């Protein structure tokens, strides 16, 4: 513990309030009791230690501020935002500008939202809705690849839907997603990329991350591969979560679709916190996190319950699982499938532990 007087002098020196006499007094104090010097120096070091704020988030925040300014009728140039004829040349320039930043693609992976309840009969449907929004969707058992107007590429996983406004990319890049998706986002600090989902809003500029929140799953996961990402939960807008690379935010899925609600709430998770930050999972010898493996056509699971694995397989193979033996639901599994068919996959699972199953068309019964 520092002597009272020494502490007062140090406080004033740090806050810039010390007089010259006090600075001299502090120095002679240190000279007389040299053992306090390392402590004083560390405290000074701490005081001068600064944390720079995240420039990319500031850039995004600034753009949102400018948008607010505009809606309040305050602009940098009066009349600028009133209906301005589109200049063709400037449009061409803008395309060149965008393709210039294409050289810096940033991988952004997302698994999000809610599964479409009634699967469409065709693999991919693209349509423009009455309001001028673009809507792309996939059915269970299929995945597809789309390119957004800014050059970003999106892989849509099974049973998912992606929507974006016709104004996409004018000021910010905003999409709505339900289901699972992998985003390869063109980095453009001037236009933040925002993904809206039923339960969370994700603000990014250049980052690689992964969110999964299927309604039939017990947990929602946001996994960060690199960069930085800010997640705000719709139900708790006052809190924001900032993740470090290789971390994931896990929370209990409180958004459960009505038709699956009953089934899920019966099963309570034991001692699991409502919200927790965990490390990403890597299988031995693999450089791709389990959380992102599906984008490499790999269905991976590591220490997940049979029920969770069955949910993943149901979307992957477009089948339904029925557990006649409820005890099996909690068995923990790990493994991965790539080219296996559903029968081969089920056979493989039987090597891990004994259970019986029956595949009838699109229904897999476990008993």
């Amino acid at each position, binding site marked *: 513990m520092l002597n009272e007087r020494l502490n007062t002098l140090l406080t004033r020196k740090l806050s810039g309030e010390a007089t010259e006499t006090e600075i001299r007094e502090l120095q002679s104090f240190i000279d007389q009791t040299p053992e306090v010097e390392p*402590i004083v120096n560390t405290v000074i070091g701490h005081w001068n230690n*600064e944390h720079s704020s995240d420039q990319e988030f500031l850039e995004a925040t*600034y753009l949102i501020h400018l948008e607010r300014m505009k809606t309040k009728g305050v602009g*940098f140039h009066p009349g600028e935002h009133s209906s301005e004829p589109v200049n063709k040349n400037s449009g061409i320039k803008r395309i060149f500008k965008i393709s210039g930043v294409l050289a810096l693609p940033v991988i952004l992976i997302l698994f999000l939202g809610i599964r479409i309840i009634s699967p469409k009969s065709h693999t991919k449907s693209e349509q423009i809705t009455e309001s001028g929004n673009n809507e792309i969707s996939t059915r269970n058992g299929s995945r597809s690849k789309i390119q957004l107007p800014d050059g970003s590429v999106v892989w849509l996983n099974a049973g998912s839907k992606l929507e974006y406004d016709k104004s996409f990319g004018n000021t910010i890049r905003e999409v709505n997603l339900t289901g699972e998706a992998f985003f390869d986002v063109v980095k453009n600090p001037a236009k933040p990329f925002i993904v809206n989902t039923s339960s969370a809003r994700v603000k990014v500029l250049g980052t690689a991350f992964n969110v999964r929140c299927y309604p039939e799953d017990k947990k929602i996961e946001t996994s960060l591969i690199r960069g930085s990402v800010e997640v705000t939960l719709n139900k708790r807008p006052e809190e924001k979560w900032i993740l470090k690379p290789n971390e994931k935010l896990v929370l209990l899925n409180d958004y459960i679709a009505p038709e699956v609600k009953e089934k899920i709430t019966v099963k309570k998770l034991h001692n699991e916190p409502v919200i927790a930050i965990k490390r990403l999972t890597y299988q031995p010898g693999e450089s791709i996190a389990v959380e992102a493996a599906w984008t490499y056509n790999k269905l991976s699971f590591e220490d997940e319950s049979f029920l969770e694995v069955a949910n993943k397989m149901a979307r992957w193979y477009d089948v339904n699982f029925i557990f006649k033996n409820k005890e099996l639901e909690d068995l923990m599994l790990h493994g991965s499938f790539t080219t296996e068919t559903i029968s081969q996959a089920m056979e493989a699972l039987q090597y891990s532990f004994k259970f019986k199953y029956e595949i009838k068309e699109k229904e897999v019964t476990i008993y």
Partner: protein
Amino acid sequence: MKENNLNIQDLQQRIAVYEDETAYKQLFFHLFPSLQNFAYSIIKSREQAEEIASDIFITVWMKRSSLMNIDNLKLYLFISVRNASVKKLNQEKKKTEGLFLDEMAVEFISDYANPEESMVFNEIERKIKSAIRELPPRCQLIYKLAKEENMRYKDISQLLDLSIKTIDNQLAIAIKKIASVVKFEKEKR
């Protein structure tokens, strides 16, 4: 932002005289996170804090021509944020009260540091941070304003309506706490 020689007065002048948008943006980058955090500590809602800070910045642009009449722009903006936040809080709670220092939720810039940067955040810094967290909000806030916002006693005094003596004492309590953490950690090695 101690090493940062960004001169607020210079930016203030560029905005007022030349309507310089770049200067406006620089001022925003320099002060917005601090103002937003300060608003949050009072209003305890991130959304409202962002709105309050954004509104203050909109006013800065709208009133740019009279910006040079303000002596200490940073303090002026902090006081504006304080007033707007207290007003909003009173509207919600349907009462008229001032600032309750001991009910404030103090946030530190380091809470929002770059993830890459926070990974190198060392052990002593972590210990200091949690020690600071144990102090009463009033003490935390004074420490934050003095350290992170680089504010002088007289400015803090005006912003929080406290005497210079109180600020000096409160800050000394925080420094004492930090020194004891440092001492303990050093002896452990």
